[in-house]
């Protein structure tokens, strides 16, 4: 497994990825693991800057609610105004090209569109640090390429992005790679 973390482009400030605090960790559903260094089954563990983090697995959407209702709920959780929510959601829907699914329930969506929504929910409050576990699973090729363009734009704007991936082919897109093997991390 590769743990990948793009960093800021030359000349821009170092993203705050190494300053992990509860306020940042809360944003993406990541928590400190109970057992540092242990590799729990069915969970992706990232070891970064001495902290052991765990990305929550499982279904993270409500099957019976629509795409728009998800945006509304998470906008409240993030403390966004209605105006900011509308502006951000419109931009993300356009960027990920799934505006036509706003009124669809989650149970009616394909895996790829669900994944787009997952990504949009994570991005809508523009976090300083974004942690993504296999974020492109289910994406078609165009969306996959668009995902990397989006990531690079945000990386260049100062957002730290940490991606957990099993695909070795993506290494040229990443600024820094950590390999986790047998519960231990090495910086490459």
């Amino acid at each position, binding site marked *: 497994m590769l743990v990948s973390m793009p960093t800021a482009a030359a000349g821009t400030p170092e993203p705050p990825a190494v300053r992990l605090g509860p306020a940042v960790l809360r944003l993406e*559903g990541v*928590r*400190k693991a109970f057992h540092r260094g242990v590799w729990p089954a069915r969970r992706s563990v990232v070891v970064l800057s001495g902290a052991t983090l765990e990305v929550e697995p*499982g279904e993270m959407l409500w099957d019976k609610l629509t795409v728009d209702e998800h945006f509304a709920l*998470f906008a409240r959780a993030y403390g966004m105004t209605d105006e900011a929510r509308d502006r951000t959601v419109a931009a993300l829907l356009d960027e990920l090209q799934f505006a036509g699914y706003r009124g669809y*329930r989650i149970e009616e969506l394909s895996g790829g569109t669900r994944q787009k929504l997952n990504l949009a929910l994570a991005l809508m409050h523009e976090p300083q640090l974004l942690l993504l576990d296999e974020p492109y699973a289910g994406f078609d090729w165009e969306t996959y390429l668009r995902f990397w363009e989006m990531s690079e734009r945000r990386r260049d704007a100062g957002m730290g992005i940490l991606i957990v991936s099993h695909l070795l082919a993506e290494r040229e897109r990443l600024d820094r790679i950590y390999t986790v093997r047998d519960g231990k991390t090495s910086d490459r």
Partner: protein
Amino acid sequence: MSAALAPSFVREHLRTRLTLVLLVAIPVFFVLIFASVLGQFSSALGGSLASRAATAISAGWAAAFLSGALAFFQLVSSRGADRRLALAGLGAGRVALARIAAALSLAVVVSAVAYLTLWLRAGVAHPLHAALAILAFAAIYIGIGALIGVFVSGALEGSLLVVLVFSVDVFSGPAMTSGGGGLLASLTPTRKAADLLIAAGAGRGSPASDWVAVTAVAVGAVGVALAAFWFSARSRA
């Protein structure tokens, strides 16, 4: 903020037409058909549950069964998403409050249908007493359903467990057996609510101590459900 979230959580469960149909059909079935079966069972077990009492209490069972099942499914089907919402900044407490508000709203809906069916079928001598007793049934089973959801994540296993608890509760209810059900019957959480509902259906009042006991059990059950929703939505760090 929790009040603003609750309507979304209610919609989550009322969105499919089949669910809406069942929320009406099950109370109607309980009051019109289950009541007579309950009376026959009581006779077979040596109990003395009168037809009118069986009809009254079946409205309570309908509200209890539906509220328990809905609370269970609210918890197990939304666990991951609720936790994500809490971690996104809302906090487990506010998510839990929204869930409780949704569960109570759904309980009021199913209780109203059960009450209306009872009123149309047999009339209600003490309308307010009967309505409160049916609501107490629903509140108690919100606690039971949510508590089961904490320990059992599988939909099938959890549903069966809700049905098991419900069945034990029904058949150890008041006047169901010749011996009164013994220790088990006295420990079932709906015992006093059942006494109140039977009395209300027959036009009798109930002692204040029974009302205090039912209120305590119902409030306690809602508290258990709140804790269960909080436990489910919290960060495990």
